[in-house]
């Protein structure tokens, strides 16, 4: 593999990993607070639609991003009301969110734009412009350093935001009082309640943050990676993000590693139709299945153990 190919694959990896990273961190924060979230996929899809629609109508991509975040947070709160306030089953509520998003985006898009459940193609300021890092031009001709720097330069703003979210999430979870309480709510909500902190409030806070991050993931899909919304365009990325979260054992830095690995697998599968490793031709199907296979291997306990937050999935019932 020559240098240019290598750089192109890594460049593509960063772009493909970005929506996964947002969604993965979203799931991580929600699950650390004890709320399982299967609905990442649906929230991403809804955000992708509204972000593209508002960006098209207003001609400003950032208004679109805000709209995407808003709709995603709304869906998060629906999930919250169902599973926190009414103590419903979190998995079922999450699945319902996915179905709701898959159906309603197409119906509204058709009613709004009459283009068959898609938004018109975005142009100009309605799309996220690539951001050239300083000195990228000047360094382009420097051997080794130039191409390497080139990989990191020229992405949409949200790509950099996504990777900054990793230390931010780590800091929030492990270095702040809010984070300590949030993790405690996921492990032992009764203890948190005894300390006089609202379990319900903490959990709502977590699902709201989850909504914001999913909104960014969806907005990036439709306005950064492509130019407009197409039905079902999230194409299973929410589930891959869940797999990455389990693969990373609910830890932010590891999550970044996991999504980069999964992004790399997708980028390689996109670039090559088959890979030769030691004389053995691997079809791309293997590459596409690997994220799931790796997650199953992790879950089966071959590589350490993946233990979810102890109170995950169960609604908190105050003792009387």
């Amino acid at each position, binding site marked *: 593999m020559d240098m240019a190919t290598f750089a192109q694959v890594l460049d*593509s990896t960063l772009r493909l990993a970005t929506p996964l990273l947002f969604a993965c961190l979203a799931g991580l924060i929600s699950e650390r607070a004890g709320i399982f979230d299967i609905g990442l996929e649906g929230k991403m899809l809804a955000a992708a639609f509204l972000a593209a629609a508002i960006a098209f109508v207003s001609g400003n991509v950032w208004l679109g991003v805000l709209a995407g975040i808003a709709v995603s947070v709304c869906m998060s709160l629906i999930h919250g009301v169902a599973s926190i306030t009414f103590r419903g089953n979190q998995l079922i509520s999450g699945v319902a969110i996915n179905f709701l998003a898959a159906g309603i985006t197409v119906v509204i898009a058709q009613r709004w734009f009459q283009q068959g*459940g898609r938004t018109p193609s975005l142009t100009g300021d309605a799309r996220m412009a690539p951001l050239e890092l300083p000195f990228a031009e000047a360094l382009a001709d420097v051997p080794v350093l130039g191409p390497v720097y080139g990989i990191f330069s020229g992405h949409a703003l949200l790509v950099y935001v996504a990777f900054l979210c990793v230390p931010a999430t780590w800091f929030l979870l492990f270095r702040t009082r809010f984070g300590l309480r949030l993790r405690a709510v996921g492990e032992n909500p009764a203890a948190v309640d005894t300390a006089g902190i609202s379990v319900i409030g903490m959990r709502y806070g977590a699902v709201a943050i989850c909504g914001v991050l999913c909104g960014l993931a969806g907005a990036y899909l439709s306005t950064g990676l492509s130019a407009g919304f197409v039905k079902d365009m999230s194409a299973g990325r929410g589930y891959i993000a869940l797999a990455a979260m389990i693969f990373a054992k609910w830890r932010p830095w590891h999550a970044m590693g996991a999504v980069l690995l999964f992004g790399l697998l*997708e980028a390689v599968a996109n*670039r090559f139709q088959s890979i030769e490793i030691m004389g053995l031709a691997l079809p791309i199907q293997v590459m596409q299945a690997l994220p799931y296979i790796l997650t199953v291997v992790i879950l089966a306990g071959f590589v350490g153990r993946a233990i979810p937050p102890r109170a995950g999935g169960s609604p908190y019932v105050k003792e009387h």
Partner: protein
Amino acid sequence: MTILKTLSASVSALALGTGVAVAEPALIFDLGGKFDKSFNEAAYNGAERWKAETGGDYRDIEMQSAAQRVQFTRRMAESGANPIVVLGFQNAPTLEEVAPDYPDTSFVLIDAVADLPNVRSVIFAEHQGSYLVGMLAAMASESNTISFVGGMEIPLISAFACGYAQGAKAVNPDMEVIVNYTGNTPDAWNDPVRGGEIARGQVSQGSDVVFAAAGGTGLGVLQAAADAGVYSIGVDSNQNYLHPGSVLTSMLKRVDQAVYDAFSEGPGLETGIVTMDLSANGVGYAVDDNNAELITAEMQAEVEAAREAIIAGETMVHDYRSDSTCPAF
């Protein structure tokens, strides 16, 4: 008295009206949806043309998941619609199951063959149309590298790729043709993000004409090509207008004509296999105001010559589906 008369007259008129309405034709869209800007939309346009010209009405329904194939087709037949046009290569088993139960209803299967007495199977010579756009691609390319993005990796889509490569190599035997498929699940028809990334990868390998045969995924491919400043080729419907100046042409598949013909012939239409090839104008390439400047007179003359040669049988375009091999690779 007169009121009663008018009433009874209008009632009988209504009854007559419903009597006619029962035999109205129906169209069942495949996964991908009515407005996919491509395959299904072409069928929709054909049905709408028939409606505008004859003033008749038709029923339609969109498949939402593979599990609904048999159910929807049966429901349509049960409702008395005739003829029923079923779109999509995956519906051959559907009709094999449903059609024998409704021997008086005519079915039209598009893109696959079901050998039944009341089914007309319409297949297209996609390899011939792809051959022509492959020639155009090769003539427009300056880097001597062109590429193809397929949806699911199935024989139908491989036939597009194979015809495309043959056409390109007929113009220039040294032409490099890069082929990628989006995936192996139906997701592959609706993933513009992955389509765009694949196209970017191909452009970085030197491709300057990208042909997308991938449904909704193709929109991402055409977008990425327009962003990168290279040419792209649309598929099924005329997609030239999507990015004027960047979309070199579109490989037309006249699904609209097949639907229009079926609706026009009505119940009891002739069954058997209908091949929509170049001679039947079933496939072709699109030239309109959006790409008139991209297709020069010489290019068009050369492609027209090839078209005549294929129709006359002097040039044989190999169909991947006949033996699952492609001489151009």
